[in-house]
């Protein structure tokens, strides 16, 4: 009797909140992105990103210092070989800071691509056991390296003080260039992570891809080496615009971003939108194939 009573009462309670009806049927063709649902799962996004950050440097001696060591040592190597020995021009800026300023967004980007591409395969246990919008997975792995970026940024501030450089007012645009790098990584990450579920070749492609991409991006060299008339074409590589933008916003080199940036934004939007739709299209097979 008592349990029946309780049943009635709680039944009354639960009838109120959500009368959401979930319809399950095979999807056909191209499906909607369901971005609202991703938004509803923002707490999961937060917790997955938080887990990545918490776990990353567990059981390491140096811990979060790794976030600084990697770009910093790369900067040292670049300074010695490209700055000192090859004497690449650095637009009147001390070469170390010139390189480090580009290595910051580059390291973020390489890390974000690497993590997001392997994210679905690495989360197979979640995908086969729980439902949630799968977009959350590559999204969280693109977001969590931002923390490393911020840590490494502190070193840049130190270097700028050391070299006695002051940022221009253009620094307010910096977050937008970071956003451009993030969206680029997300777009590429959605494509590669979905492909990786089906074709594990992707895992082997990524190291090459990031290496080639590094050469195609003016990290070690100045984009002034690229002839003016090819600039628009250079914008097809969004990371070129990101790196240029970082130097412009922080060090005041180069020109105000113009057509090259416009080309990059267009490319990024194309990659991201197509990536999102491809991802959603393949999403239904993830649990069965991964």
């Amino acid at each position, binding site marked *: 009797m008592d*349990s029946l009573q*309780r*049943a*009635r009462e*709680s*039944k009354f309670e*639960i009838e109120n*909140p*959500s*009368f*959401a*009806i*979930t*319809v*399950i*049927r*095979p*999807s056909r063709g191209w499906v909607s992105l369901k971005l609202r649902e991703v938004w509803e799962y923002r*707490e*999961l996004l*937060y*917790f*997955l990103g*938080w*887990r990545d950050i*918490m*776990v990353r440097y*567990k*059981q390491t001696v140096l811990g979060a210092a790794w976030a600084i060591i990697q770009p910093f040592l790369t900067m040292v190597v670049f300074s010695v070989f490209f700055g000192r020995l090859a004497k690449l021009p650095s637009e009147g800026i001390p070469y170390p800071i010139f390189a480090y300023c580009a290595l910051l967004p580059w390291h973020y980007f390489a890390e974000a691509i690497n993590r997001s591409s392997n994210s679905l395969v690495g989360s197979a*246990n*979640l*995908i*086969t*056991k*729980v*439902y*949630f919008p799968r977009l959350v997975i590559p999204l969280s792995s693109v977001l969590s390296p931002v923390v490393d970026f911020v840590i490494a940024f502190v070193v840049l501030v130190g270097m700028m003080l050391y070299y006695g450089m002051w940022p221009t007012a253009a620094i307010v645009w910096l977050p937008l260039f970071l956003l451009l790098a993030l969206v680029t990584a997300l777009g590429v990450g959605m494509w590669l992570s979905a492909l990786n*579920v*089906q*074709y*594990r*070749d992707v895992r082997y492609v990524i190291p090459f891809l990031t290496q080639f991409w590094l050469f195609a991006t003016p990290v070690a060299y100045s984009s002034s080496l690229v002839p003016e008339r090819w600039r628009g074409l250079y914008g097809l590589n969004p990371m070129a615009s990101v790196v240029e933008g970082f130097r412009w916003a922080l060090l005041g080199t180069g020109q105000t971003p113009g057509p090259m940036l416009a080309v990059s934004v267009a490319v990024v939007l194309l990659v991201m939108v197509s990536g999102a739709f491809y991802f959603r299209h393949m999403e*239904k097979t993830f*649990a*069965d*194939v991964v």
Partner: protein
Amino acid sequence: MSDIAIRVENLSKLYRIGGRQERYKTLRESLTGAVTAPFRRLWSVVRGQSSAVANETIWALKDVSFEVQRGEVVGIIGRNGAGKTTLLKVLSRITEPTKGYAEIHGRVGSLLEVGTGFHPELTGRENIYLNGAILGMKRAEIDRKFDEIVAFAEIEKFISTPVKHYSSGMHVRLAFAVAAHLEPEILLVDEVLAVGDVAFQRKCLGKMEDVSHEGRTVLFVSHNMAAISHLCERAVLLDLGRIVRYGDTSDVVSSYLEMAESDSKVLLVDRRDRKGSGELRVQSITLRNGMGEEVKSFRVGETAVFELAYESSTRKAHKNVRVGFPIDSILGQRVSLLQNEMSGFFFEEIPPKGRIMCKVPQLPLVAGRYHFSFCITLNGIIADWVIKAGILEITAGDFFDTGRTLDVQDGIVVLKQVWQVEPELEPVASSF
């Protein structure tokens, strides 16, 4: 609006077996495959063969239709591979159905596994939040239930210890505690109670009962008929992806038991979840008693004969054959392994088609249900391997030859035993 919580209409799910075994392919394979496939298909049409595609797929669910009322607790039972988990996966939107339609009224929580997403490096506290979020709980909700979860799991002292230092029991308790505090209107539960020690299982069953009294709708997959009978008013019996019976739990459970017991011979020809090269395949396993009669179950202490009928695909005799026949408890604990080489027996040569018999003179297992599996290797390469090939039912028997039937249920094995008593002798009086 009627009081329906779940409506399922003609739900079907097709799996590609080849795809599942290979899991993934390389781009090159699929490119060459894409180029050659049309020719191969054409060739098979020319030769008058039916399409090979039909053989490579399996309907894990086929035209499943049923309705569940709000507040009902429905059990889903069936043999291994009947499609129970697939049904839950489709209903919880983990995987899409191939055909059909289902609608679910209300917020769904699914528990296909406890501790999904647990990270060994994180502490108990951190994992509660992470796992809760993965199962669909809001942060505020976890905050509110946090103390209750910790108390339920009985791990107060270790809440700030990384989970990798937990014992497996603690791990499971914590995982279940989070899951048990999930409060969706509709709960889909796979066999998660088959974990942990007996006391904790009882606690979990109690929690499940509370849930059902709270007027929530529950779909509950289990092999534990006692739990199903206890918790569910109605049950669905699935077999080979189809609904065999849907109705009152007691009727459905008895149909299931009949079905399980009707197989004194376990046919394995249709089993798709097998591994190995396939050079040799076990067709069926027959249980026989000491007199060679087919039986459905053994009594404790009886002579048991396991007979594997096999066939080789190469039509050749094989040498260097190893047959393993593990027996596991229903909870997945390995009870024993029967294996020819281990026991000092080597097959000189086995014919391309035949029967392999293994006799256990006096079965020392306590009454209960067990799973058996088998694995056959030829020259060290697995030829055929089926996990949980069948169920071994052991009933009360006269193990000690006392003329009385003993229903031993304590422990795992029954041991032959010799008892005696000796008086404590004075040292001086001792003959030594």
